[in-house]
């Protein structure tokens, strides 16, 4: 099984791809997988997932030989939000180009092509630093995966991490109640969400076990007023759910 870390190279110029691949793989112990920029940014994110990339290097002007509807800086912002902590860098000959002006781009993420191509010391130093960033990112990712895959019963630590993810995902979620009466082989969550649709009964969706959450996961969104009715016993929970021994997680910024 291949264990080397993967650099995803997003480049629309086939001639440049082989040069960069040779330079990078000749300097650090990684595999470079090159992809032509897909038309949609969501498909680029899918490529990051598919290849389990630990870093992405983007050309800035991606639209010259591809159907891409975005620039490298757009992709950097999108992927930065989708993959927090993933090393992302832009290669460009035009670091002061108008498309980059006014965009939040750290100098560390901007690599001048002529430095990379012609200055071996620069290239070596940059790639060594990138390799360290990749290893750190992969270690953090592996820790999270290990937490998921080694669990054979639901733990408070695991549900707490899931709750944090859900707070991050949906700003409407105010608190999450872990219904522990569901048992240790599945997770049942009542998520108090101020943007939930009104309902006259509590309906939970069950999601099958996955790589990240290796347990059946039940989620129901209820409005704050409905949560009050549930606590008062005026609104019934699904069969087998009780609030006895339930644990409440509060949104970190409102707790």
């Amino acid at each position, binding site marked *: 099984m291949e264990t080397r870390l993967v650099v995803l190279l997003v480049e629309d110029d086939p001639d440049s791809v082989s040069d960069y691949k040779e330079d990078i793989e000749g300097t650090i112990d990684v595999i470079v997988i090159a992809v032509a920029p897909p038309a949609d940014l*969501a498909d680029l994110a899918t490529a990051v997932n*598919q290849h389990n990339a630990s870093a992405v290097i983007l050309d800035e002007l991606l639209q010259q030989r591809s159907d891409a509807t975005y620039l490298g800086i757009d992709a950097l912002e999108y992927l930065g939000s989708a*993959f927090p902590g993933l090393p992302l860098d832009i290669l460009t000959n035009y670091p002061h180009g108008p498309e980059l002006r006014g965009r939040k781009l750290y100098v560390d993420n901007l690599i001048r092509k002529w430095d990379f191509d012609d200055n071996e010391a620069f290239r070596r130093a940059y790639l060594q630093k990138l390799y360290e960033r990749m290893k750190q990112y992969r270690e953090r990712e592996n820790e999270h995966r290990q937490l998921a895959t080694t669990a054979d019963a639901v733990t408070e630590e695991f549900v707490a991490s899931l709750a944090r993810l859900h707070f991050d995902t949906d700003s409407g979620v105010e608190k999450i109640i872990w219904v522990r009466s569901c048992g240790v082989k599945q997770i049942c969550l009542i*998520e108090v969400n101020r943007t939930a649709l009104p309902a006259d009964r509590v*309906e939970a*969706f069950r*999601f*099958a076990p996955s790589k990240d959450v290796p347990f059946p996961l*039940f989620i129901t969104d209820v409005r704050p007023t409905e949560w009050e009715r549930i606590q008062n016993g005026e609104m019934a929970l699904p*069969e087998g759910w009780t609030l006895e021994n339930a644990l409440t997680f509060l949104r970190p910024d409102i707790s």
Partner: protein
Amino acid sequence: MWARAYVEQARSDWDTGKVVTATKGCAACHWLHYLQMTTEKLGKAALLRSGGDLEAIKTSHKAFVRFLRVAARSPSLRQMLGYNVQQLKAYVDEVLPIAEGIERLAPALAQQGPNAEYPWETPAGAIVAPASHNFSVLEDLRKPQGRKLLRLILRVLDNFDAIF
């Protein structure tokens, strides 16, 4: 099992909708009707697979949008699509308004207004048949967000057992 039967019927609605769209001269309301029924049954199938009460679910018309609202928090859906949570949230946020528009095509939710099945009376007193109405959601479905929604519906239909 009820959930399986609902998925089967949703799939049949989807396939019939495709036949309808390929039929020359067929009014758009018929495809929208099959699309609305597809999503309604798919949402109900998800609730049934989740252990919901059959009699209560039978009368619900809002299950699909409810599903979409929690979809980003579904690890199995994320795994199936190869998306992470932020990607799926962004995807769902884009398609949600169109899904709500499709849901409202059900006569029970249309509040005696435009729906894909029965004539209605406008506030000005005109009687309109769905067959001659220009549905705004049809335009939405032609946009990239609409195509994304259709793609998502198909993926959920095709991978129902892996997701729920």
